[in-house]
């Protein structure tokens, strides 16, 4: 659905994107994660042909992003935290304005989304709160059943209640559509994303399916017979190795339940017990981000 290859984007002397490559499979919910300024929004703007790449290519729906035309835009839903809509029109007027541009617009679906999101159709867009505006943007992106839905920081600044309403609205209509969602907070896309890519300073750290990612990351706690000392040599897939008393902890990034004991014993002497537990997405993100900064990952 989306293929990004060696994408570069410069703003003056600043490289916002530095050779970014990733692929969004059809039907996936792909999360683009990264801290503020990592290049998520720039990537999305390039995909939407709002910005032109400096180098490299981005293809969506089989079309080069530079050539995205109304034909492709009619199949893409776009929701952004920074979307300028005509503030003097009412919600209803703007929806009515958008309707004819989409041949697949479903008025029944529109009404049902409006109801579900509890949108005041008669209120002027300029008078809506940030949360309401985000819900309205979602409402304007779903009734034509887009093949691809792009959400740029959709949860930014939303209170938990509105966020839940937004997510319900989104998930109810997701169906077969491919979703690309950017966020600086991995926890926000927990339960939504099927795939994830980490961006840092315009570079991709990695891209992986969510099940693989959560499956291969474990926090391992090794209890030793005596006071623990950091092993001199450890496998590169072990990260954040720490010792407290006779306990040594690390994050195993290539977790294999059957082989863990053997690997620990081959690296560390005097092992009394080994425990492993799954990690929250937020902690995985932190580990990876820290490792990226330290030149690992």
């Amino acid at each position: 659905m989306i293929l990004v290859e060696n994408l570069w984007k410069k703003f003056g002397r600043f490289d916002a994107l530095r050779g970014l490559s990733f692929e969004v499979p059809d039907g996936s919910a792909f999360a683009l994660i990264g801290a503020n300024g990592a290049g998520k929004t720039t990537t999305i703007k390039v995909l939407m042909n709002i910005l032109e790449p400096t180098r490299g290519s981005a293809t969506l729906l089989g079309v080069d992003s530079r050539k995205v035309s109304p034909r492709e835009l009619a199949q893409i839903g776009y929701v952004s935290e920074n979307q300028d809509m005509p503030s003097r029109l009412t919600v209803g007027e703007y929806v009515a304005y958008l309707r004819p541009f989409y041949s697949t617009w479903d008025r029944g679906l529109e009404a049902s989304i409006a109801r579900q999101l509890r949108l005041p159709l008669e209120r002027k867009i300029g008078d809506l709160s940030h949360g309401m505006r985000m819900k309205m943007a979602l409402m304007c992106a779903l009734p034509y059943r887009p093949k691809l839905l792009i959400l740029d920081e959709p949860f930014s600044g939303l209170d938990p209640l509105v966020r839940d309403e937004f997510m319900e609205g989104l998930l109810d209509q997701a169906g077969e559509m491919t979703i690309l969602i950017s966020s600086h907070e991995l926890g926000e896309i927990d339960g939504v994303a099927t795939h994830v890519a980490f961006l840092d300073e315009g570079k991709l750290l990695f891209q992986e399916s969510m099940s693989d990612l959560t499956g291969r990351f474990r926090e391992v706690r090794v209890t030793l017979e005596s006071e623990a000392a950091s092993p001199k040599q450890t496998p590169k897939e072990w990260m954040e190795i720490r010792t407290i008393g006779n306990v040594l902890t690390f994050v195993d990034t290539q977790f294999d339940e059957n082989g863990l004991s053997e690997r620990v014993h081959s690296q560390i002497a005097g092992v009394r017990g080994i425990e492993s537990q799954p990690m929250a997405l937020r902690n995985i993100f932190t580990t990876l981000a820290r490792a990226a900064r330290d030149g690992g990952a």
Partner: protein
Amino acid sequence: MVWHIFKKDWKLAWVFVLVVSVVHWIDSAITYKLGLFNEDPMLEMLADAVPMLAFFASMFLIGAIVHLDSIPGVRQDWLVRPISRRDLVVEKFVFVVLMVNGPIFAAVLVQGLAHKFSFRLSLVAAMWQAAYFLFAFTLPLFSFASVTRNMTQAFILGCGCTFIILGFQTIASYLNERAHGTLLTIAWSGVGWVGETTRFALSVAAAIIILSLQYFRRKTLISRGVVVLFGLVLLATQFIPWKAAFAIEQKLSPKPGAATNVVVAFDLGLGKFRSPSGLGVSSEQGRRYNPGEHTSVYLPLQVAGTHKNAFLLTDLVEVRLIVPGGKVAFHGRGERLEFAEAALNNLAYQEIQVPASVYRDIKDQPVRAEVDYSLTLFGLRQSYSVPALGGDERMPGFGWCETKMNETETAVELRCMQPGKGPTCATLFLENEANGLRNPPRSSCHGDYSPYSGWYFGDNMAHFGANVPFRDPSALAKFPVDGPQLPQSRVVIRVYEPEDHFTRQVEIPQIKLKDWEAQ
């Protein structure tokens, strides 16, 4: 989808459109109420202010319309909608033309009809005005607005452009002054329309390039470069050489060859210029404002070979004074001359204002004078007449005129109005119908050969007239038709239209300037 986007813009901008339209209509109402004699001081003051208000309001309206779906920026919702760029630019253009030019068109048309001009004349005037406004104002501003995101940005960029224009104009004026007026020759002349039309053509070209770049490729930085580049080229059109512009005008002469027999020659026989009579107002003013900076030299000229009922106007007089050795000591402009019927085949003095320092250096030397004349021969097209007192006539093919006595009771005030650009040249005199006596004619020429009419604001009506004297307050002159005869008299207006544009060169092999200085 053009109509669909149009409806959205109307919903968003109708109040602003209405306000600007009302300002234009108020402007028209004021001009209408002023009538021919502009006698209400309050209305006259408003007539100065409201057009400027309408001008700036239209400017803001164009910006506001374009900014409803602005091009620069990355946040606009329309960028992610399946909206055809072609539909968008067409809609914006149509909306701007209808909402900005439409009310102006309507105002001029209604005003023409209110003045009881025919529908055809009023319509033609309204169409020219709308077309002029489109090319001179709407299109350039539309292009400019498309390279800005919002009104603040437009204002800042506009201020920058104004600063560049003022700087350019200051430099241009300085250079022109140093070149004694020979650099900026076509502005405010009869062929000024050549420069203006060039600017329109450049504006259209710039608009096509900028709007294509913006709406189809969203290349704002390049477009801004194009704005600046075309802006400088537009400013540079002031420097279009006179010869090139006048050559175009010559090609467009209505009766080419009509001036073949016209001869302009230096005539020693008339002797030195001695009397202030015939001295042009402009030269008197020039001396008043620049005492000691210039010395006026008057060369006697004879014009011959014109047909009866002709009128001759110098469009540009370019003078070169060449000292022995071939060096050009002075290259500048001479005063413009008018030769009305009565003056033709007679003598006139060509005034040349020589800078005092140059004059001091060469006044005793024999110099060669070369005077290049660009001239227009006018033929009488039609005569009209209006009663000298209380006249109120609508003359088909001419316009509407009224007459009244002036406050000092020395002249008859004639004021006329005509849809379009009005007559180029006319002579006026008082004639007693009963005894056939006539006063000497007065000429009034504005030498505009533009094939079209229009201005940035106003009603696209030519407002013109003159005061026709019948009594000299100093009692030195006696007019054949005087005050008591006015009830039986009419103001005769003889309208002249250009027949041929031509050039002549007068060479005076050897003269000493001090011999021709005014006494």
